[in-house]
């Protein structure tokens, strides 16, 4: 089913919760809504589900305008962050409830099948309150899947779960989504989660839709500074600079030799963006050096995040491996100018590192 939001916006009193935007999530695929809390993800999902009416604009399902249609009449499944289940029904009946409403014949069989898919078949005769958080969320997911709705909305469903549980469920969800043919909309605040789920990503910030496209593409080619900021973890290092013949001259920093588009700009001021993973300790030919002092070193098992105070400001570098640094030691980081993102004075993307997609015949998952 093709869902399309055309020019919708949402105002509540004097406040604009969603600025005018149009979005047509790819049918049958996963679309991740990525943004900070209060960015408008939940408001957008509510409009998609029919729980809210947009102040302006049309919502169409397969070309038919459904704005006035209440959510009860639309075929939508929704999963929330708070493990919502019917507390007085057993797990079995919870999963069966949408099947009963739709008059399905083999309810028992479907329930067992779904429970097995989500690894909760041993809990079928228990009440949700007796299960752990992760198990309760699996029940909610099974119920949503039982509905087999063409549109499935998940509002940060894993945020209240443990880190490891989140990893596990995320993988299982990825497999479940790929196996089904519903259009899935998944809201999250973590860029890492968007990347792991793949599919498409819509980046939201303060009620505005900034960019929509295949996830890897949005990540590697953010159209604006705001998208780059929203879609990076750790935060992208930003430095002010000017366009000069030959590249970008960073204020108080080195010259980055870059081939910029020839058209002259109104203002030569630009912002250079560099991801933490683009900085390294080893100098490769053509690299630019950045001297500084170590302010903080954070070790996270496989990587070390070093906060270095340099002439261009404070910079975070993600180094592979475990490195111990004494605070205050001088450190030189190297960066390849080809890895730099350049944004113009208004924040629009001027230049991004080359991205050719995963170089394999099979392509991405």
């Amino acid at each position, binding site marked *: 089913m093709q869902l399309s939001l055309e020019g919708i916006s949402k105002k509540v009193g004097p406040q604009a919760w969603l600025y005018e935007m149009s979005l047509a999530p790819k049918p049958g695929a996963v679309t991740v809504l990525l943004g900070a809390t209060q960015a408008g993800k939940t408001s957008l999902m509510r409009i998609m589900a029919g729980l809210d009416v947009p102040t302006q604009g049309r919502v169409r399902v397969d070309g038919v305008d459904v704005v006035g249609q209440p959510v009860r009449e639309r075929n939508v499944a929704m999963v929330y962050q708070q493990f919502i289940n019917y507390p007085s029904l057993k797990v079995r009946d919870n999963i069966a409830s949408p099947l009963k409403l739709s008059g399905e014949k083999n309810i028992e069989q479907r329930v067992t099948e779904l429970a097995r898919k989500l690894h909760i078949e041993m809990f079928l005769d228990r009440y949700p309150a007796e299960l*752990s958080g992760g198990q309760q969320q699996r029940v909610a997911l099974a119920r949503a899947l039982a509905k087999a709705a063409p549109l499935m909305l998940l509002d940060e469903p894993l945020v209240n779960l443990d*880190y490891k549980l989140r990893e596990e469920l995320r993988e299982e969800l990825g497999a479940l989504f790929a196996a089904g043919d519903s259009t899935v909309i998944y809201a999250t605040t973590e*860029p890492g989660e968007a990347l792991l789920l793949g599919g498409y990503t819509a980046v939201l910030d303060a009620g505005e839709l900034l960019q929509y496209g295949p996830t890897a593409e949005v990540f590697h080619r953010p159209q604006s500074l705001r998208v780059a900021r929203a879609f990076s973890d750790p935060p992208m290092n930003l430095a002010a600079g000017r366009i000069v013949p030959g590249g970008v001259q960073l204020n108080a920093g080195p010259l980055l030799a870059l081939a910029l588009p020839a058209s002259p700009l109104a203002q030569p001021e630009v912002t250079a963006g560099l991801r933490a993973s683009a900085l390294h300790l080893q100098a490769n030919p053509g690299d630019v050096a950045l001297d500084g002092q170590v302010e*903080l070193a954070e*070790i996270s098992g*496989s990587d070390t995040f070093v906060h270095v105070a340099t002439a261009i400001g404070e910079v975070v570098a993600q180094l592979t491996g475990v490195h111990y640094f004494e605070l205050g030691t001088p450190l030189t980081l190297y960066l390849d100018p080809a890895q730099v993102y350049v944004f113009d004075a208004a924040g629009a993307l001027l230049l991004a590192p080359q991205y050719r997609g*995963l170089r394999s015949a099979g392509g991405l998952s």
Partner: protein
Amino acid sequence: MARITLDLAHAYRPNPQQDSDYALLPLKMEFADGGAYALLGPSGCGKTTMLNIMSGLLVPSTGTVLFDGRDVTRATPQERNIAQVFQFPVIYDTMTVAENLAFPLRNRKVPQAQIDKRVGEIAEMLEMSGQLNQRAANLAADAKQKISLGRGLVRPDVSAVLFDEPLTVIDPHLKWQLRRKLKQIHRELKLTLIYVTHDQVEALTFAEQVVVMTRGRAVQVGSADALFERPSHTFVGNFIGSPGMNFLQAKVSDGALLVADLRLPLLRALPDGELKLGVRPEYVRLAQPQDTGALPCLVTKLQDVGTHVMLTATVLGQAVKAKLATDAALPAIGDIAWLQVLGTHTCFYKNEEIVA
């Protein structure tokens, strides 16, 4: 600033018979004065119970808690002079930021001039000096958590600061800032800090020593490095690292190592019998066919995770994941790729405990 010594157990009922009756199995642990520690584990592992026993909100069913050698097992949190920061910000809605920070000192009848000075210092440290006169209720979640933290730090003689998953409600990019702030505070004030979390990144970046717990048991205590390179238990191998360690069934017999029906060289002394081979995805490399220590695996998934590529493959029904660089020559889905699993970072486990 205090040294905390624990020698206790906590059971759900008076006569515990088996392990499942215990919330915390008998343990002995010491937290050095001024150290930063993390209690890391999944929900239900007992980390919050341990924290509450240390703070005085819970009395252990058996055993003692010592602060600098003084028995405080039955003492209240006030008497122990600890500070605790909870999962969601706990602030007094009707007060301003300054009044919130001043509250613990006012309750102790400290003179107003001293209170103002101390509040000013702490606000400066937390970068909240400009918001002192704002109503605390209207601030964002991370500012409120800073206030919660500030209330704990404002007492000059606080013995330890205990954190119970404090960054749960904070946005990812603000988490970075708060973590940095915590480390700076630790460096400046040299307080004993104990941090409970289920997020390994938070635990490893924050703490000097991490206590990994599961089901009431402290499985391993060590630095981030040690936990990553040589996890002493398969649980630690799986829990630390995102994704966790790959585990493959292995068997040693007649001086040969059999993994997935392939004979691999025995590079170090291993006990006979059924073993588990553990290797982290960070150390799995693409190899040429028939290389020593490599296994032929069927590639099932390739994910572009921004900074690297995650390859998922199966070998005889067992999954193997590899973290590869984005510019590596990648196989396609459905290909057979040879993955190098034997190396200096590979660990071997027997009955879930490390043997080599």
